[in-house]
């Protein structure tokens, strides 16, 4: 089966998958009360670690596992900084983005002996890419059920709305938030691995290209729900796919690239109906 429409749908899914992972990570963090603007850094760390480990061990599967672990570790750094040291989440997130950018560029030179881009490594291949795309949708379903149908999910959502109430129920909101940032970091790391070992077979500086910020837009547009964010991510993926179709149509590609961000700005005005962040989103909890 082929044809322009099938190609377009395929490309949409390919472009949407990393956005879905990162957007789900964003939803989980914000529902727990952590505004994670370090998603971009976590994608970068996942993408780089995946390729570096695949290169050093020769196994893309080990690269996949390492990329997820590295993303979770990056997420934990944010979680620890925000819950244990009371560092402002926004400031910490900005710092962690710089840290990831510099660290991966540095690591690239150390591991591959060249700046800019790594050499090609064994990737997960076409089948691996499609498994990861399918997994992204599965992750949205799992997160939906976990958030709305489990006791853990109830605690996470309560931490995003009213952490003091969680505390009076005898649970430490700081731990709930820390775990949420780690799982989210792992999800974002997986999104990064998808970029470097799924869609491509190498790492290059700046390859995440702002997807972590598009994901934040998808969270707002999806009204802080897993399915909503997934839908927004698919929409933004379709925009990215449309760019290829419209390359020669005279519509500036920059405009297409800017649309997700402009949509997010519009959403902030409340133009698209009521969009309310969790009550304690980004509000530090201290004792």
């Amino acid at each position, binding site marked *: 089966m082929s044809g322009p429409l099938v190609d377009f749908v395929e490309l949409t899914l390919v472009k949407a998958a990393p956005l879905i992972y990162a957007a789900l990570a964003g939803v989980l963090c914000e529902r727990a009360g952590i*505004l994670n*603007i370090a998603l971009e850094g976590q994608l970068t760390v996942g993408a780089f670690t995946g390729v570096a480990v695949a290169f050093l061990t020769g196994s893309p599967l080990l690269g996949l596992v390492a990329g997820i672990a590295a993303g979770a570790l990056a997420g934990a*750094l944010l979680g620890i*900084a925000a819950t244990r*040291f*009371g*560092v*402002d989440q*926004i*400031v*910490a997130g*900005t*710092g*962690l*983005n*710089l*840290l*990831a*950018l*510099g*660290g991966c*560029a*540095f690591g690239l*030179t*150390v591991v591959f002996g060249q*700046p800019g881009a790594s050499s090609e490594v064994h990737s997960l291949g076409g089948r691996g890419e499609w498994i990861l795309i399918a997994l992204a949708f599965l992750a949205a379903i799992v997160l939906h059920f976990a958030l709305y149908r489990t006791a853990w999910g109830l605690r996470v959502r309560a931490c995003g709305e009213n952490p003091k109430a969680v505390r009076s129920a005898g649970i430490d909101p700081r731990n709930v938030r820390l775990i949420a940032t780690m799982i989210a970091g792992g999800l974002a790391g997986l999104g990064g691995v998808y970029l470097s070992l799924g869609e491509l077979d190498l790492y290059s500086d700046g390859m995440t290209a*702002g997807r972590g*910020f598009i994901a*934040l*837009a998808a969270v*707002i547009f999806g009204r802080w729900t897993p399915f909503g964010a997934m839908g927004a991510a698919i929409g933004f993926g379709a925009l990215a796919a449309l760019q290829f179709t419209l390359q020669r149509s005279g519509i*500036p590609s*920059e*405009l297409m*690239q*800017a649309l997700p*961000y*402009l949509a*997010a*700005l519009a959403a*902030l*005005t*409340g133009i698209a109906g009521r969009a309310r*962040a969790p009550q304690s989103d*980004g509000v530090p909890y201290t004792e």
Partner: protein
Amino acid sequence: MIRALGVALALAAIAALAMIVAGANPIVGFFALFRGALGGPNQIAETLVQTTSLLFPSLAVAFAFRAGLFNIGAEGQLIIGGLVAGLIGARLNVPGALAIPVILVAGAFGGALWGSTAGVLRARFGGNEVIATLMLNIVAALLANYLVVGPLHSPGATGAETAQLPESSWLPTLLADTRLTIALPIAILLAFALRFVFDRTIFGYELRAAGDAPEAARRAGINLARTAFVAMALSGAMAGLGGATIVTGVLHRFNVALSPGYGFIAIAVALVGDLDPLRIIVAAFAFGILQSGSLTMQAYAHVPKDVVTFVEGLAIVALAARRFVAERAKTSPA
């Protein structure tokens, strides 16, 4: 002070460790870094150029922070300021003496426009200024790229940049054959002016009150929405002015890559300077050394220059924690 020194030492130790990982001798690495930044008059001039380019957005970030607003968008505001300066500067036909002030003011206006967009979202709609400024950063870069490559493309330009500004619009240099211009004294004057505004004016008091205790400020009759709008617009103007000085003083044209992330590094500078305009001057010089010495370090000691970005990120996380620890120590009775 001692704590700040401790953080600096810890960061230096981590940088040294990174150099060892990269297979370099840290002593050689640090020596190359400082020689590249301070090894002669030309090197010092270039370090001061980096100091200047960092100082404008750092003051912008600190100004907004003091008013309780997270301006993560200094990068975008700086780019728009530079873009406006470049587009006007390359086309402007006014006598030299007028050209420079016109271009600088236009750049500041561009940055103010960009900053106040986030300010409006916050003031009118209660939208999160962090998300707004993050999004506006990327839109700024895309807009600049589109305009410079597309409809406003200058015939003389080769890449994603405007044509060169006529020499009459270049900022006067302080030291012959360097890129060090009067932008540095302008930035330092701005820092002193901000210090005066914060300490001696009602407006500055209102800004600080809105930042330190918004609820009390509201009850005291301070209009928080208006304060947020004005603070974001002025913060954007400072960053935009910085972009305009890079165009008129350093590159003599607008290039889409005019900032290696000054707007983000500025957050580290502002925190190191404890959000105090005068201490930020010193902090900007310290980060200027890192920026200008990193290439020499890479060339002579074979340490990838990205170590600097890594350490800057670490500094932001560490210093944000230090501030909190210091505040908690102040408030807790024990």
